[in-house]
């Protein structure tokens, strides 16, 4: 399980690197233009910490490593990811309170991530932030759980929800963070943080689905 998680984390790091220019451009249009570099620095931190991780590291351990790697980045995005991943690590680690099924566990992880980000950053849906890509993931996983979807279908749906959510921010006016000074002028391009989040979810999802196929 940790091996699969490692691979997914590294896939996410690679996908963020590949999108560096695009994320810089999106952040530059309404904010300060660092989001591509900041996320790429995060990806480097993550790779370095993963390389140094003990072989016996549990999934919760790995998630805490990534949380620390993102905290080290600073910026607005660093503490937000750090808080979210720390919450997920705690959730994953506390086997006692873990819900039974795979999809339910994933839904629960997304919920605690959202709670942590909202708790720290106070953004709500429609504020044109990472929340607008994360909240649809929570909703999608809730739906999948209700419909008793299998894990692969739930993951694919969650990734699509993140992408649709990120794309939907293009029409929004920023109400929080740097871009909020722009008001109406912030409309037109999707939010950088929502976009990078969707890219990460997609990379993790694909890595997971690839691993399953490979395992068969």
């Amino acid at each position, binding site marked *: 399980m940790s091996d699969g998680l490692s691979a997914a984390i590294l896939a996410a790091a690679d996908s963020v690197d590949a999108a560096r*220019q695009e994320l810089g451009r999106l952040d*530059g249009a*309404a904010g300060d233009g660092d989001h591509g570099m900041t996320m790429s620095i995060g990806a480097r931190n993550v790779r370095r910490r993963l390389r140094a991780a003990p072989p016996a590291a549990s999934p919760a351990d790995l998630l805490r490593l990534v949380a620390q790697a993102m*905290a080290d980045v*600073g910026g607005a995005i660093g*503490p937000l990811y750090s808080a979210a991943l720390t919450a997920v690590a705690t959730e994953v680690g506390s086997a006692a309170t873990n819900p039974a099924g795979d999809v339910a566990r994933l839904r629960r992880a997304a919920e605690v991530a959202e709670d942590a980000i909202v708790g720290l950053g106070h953004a709500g849906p429609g504020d044109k932030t990472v929340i607008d890509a994360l909240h649809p993931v929570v909703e999608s996983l809730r739906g999948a759980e209700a419909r008793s979807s299998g894990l692969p279908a739930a993951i694919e749906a969650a990734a699509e929800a993140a992408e649709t959510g990120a794309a939907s921010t293009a029409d929004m006016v920023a109400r929080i963070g740097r871009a909020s000074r722009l008001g109406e002028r912030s409309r037109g391009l999707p939010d950088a943080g929502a976009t990078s989040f969707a890219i990460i979810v997609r990379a993790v999802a694909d890595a997971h689905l690839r691993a399953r196929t490979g395992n068969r």
Partner: protein
Amino acid sequence: MLKKLINDPFDAVDEMLDGFVAAHADRVRLVGERVVARIAPDRAKVGLVIGGGSGHEPAFVGYVGHGLADAAAVGNIFAAPSPDNCLEAIRAASAGMGVLLVYGNYAGDIMNFGIAAERAAAEGIEVRTVLVTDDVASAPNAEMERRRGIAGDVVVFKCTGAMAERGAMLDDVERVARAVNAATRSMGVALSPCEVPGAGRLSFELSDDEIEIGLGLHGEPGMRRGPLLTADETAEILVQTILADLPKPSGHEVALLVNGLGATAQLDLYILYRAARLALERAGNVVIRSMVGEFITSLEMAGASVTVTLLDDELRDLLDDPARAARFDR
């Protein structure tokens, strides 16, 4: 892509810091990887910690030293320093009399410094925070607490650092920081964008005859875009907007700071200073202290900002107090 004299963009901040502490080793030292601290003061005092993202050089590291800050936490380019760095800066500045954090009002800085402040408090260090909110273009007067910090930082650092250097207690140092921030207003214009190295894209695009009015310190697009103006017209807009934001527009003794954002000629800065001073005087104010130069930049953005601080005797004297920081002498 803007042409730069750097190596790998991922090494830029660390190499800058390496060069910075080597060049200014008589006044500052590196603590850990991303904190610049002053060569230890000779006696205990309230610690002043400043900081923020890189790309604003000589800020923030240049304002560490005698009569100014005790430590600066250094972030990646245009990214707030991490909680660990902020905590390290607080520890370096702490001499048992408490530590005041003074930084610009940005969500990232608030989250990172905030987490560090909690941890420092848990270690028994008394920590207070004052946010700099001088940028009148960043939010309306009624929402003052949403405003960002730009070049007014420097005036706030100077007065606050002087108060701490005098040996004042934490309450008084905090009071001065709040007073000088409340008395300070700034606004800027950009003539060309900057670019975070490695990101590969300009922060915004302007045509040859356009400027961005009321921009942020990181190239965040401003209040509005307009045609290229003369220095006199620019100063008039900036000064009038600032004066309109004050309880009364005239009768003040003020400090006037004109800050270059990185790529604007110092010739231009003095021409803009002259125009801003005349505009302030026409409105019935007297400029009694002045600073012109690059104090807090946005990489190589072309443009400038105007900062006005209403002075009373206390703030004026604090501005006049001696300072020997890495990049600020008085």
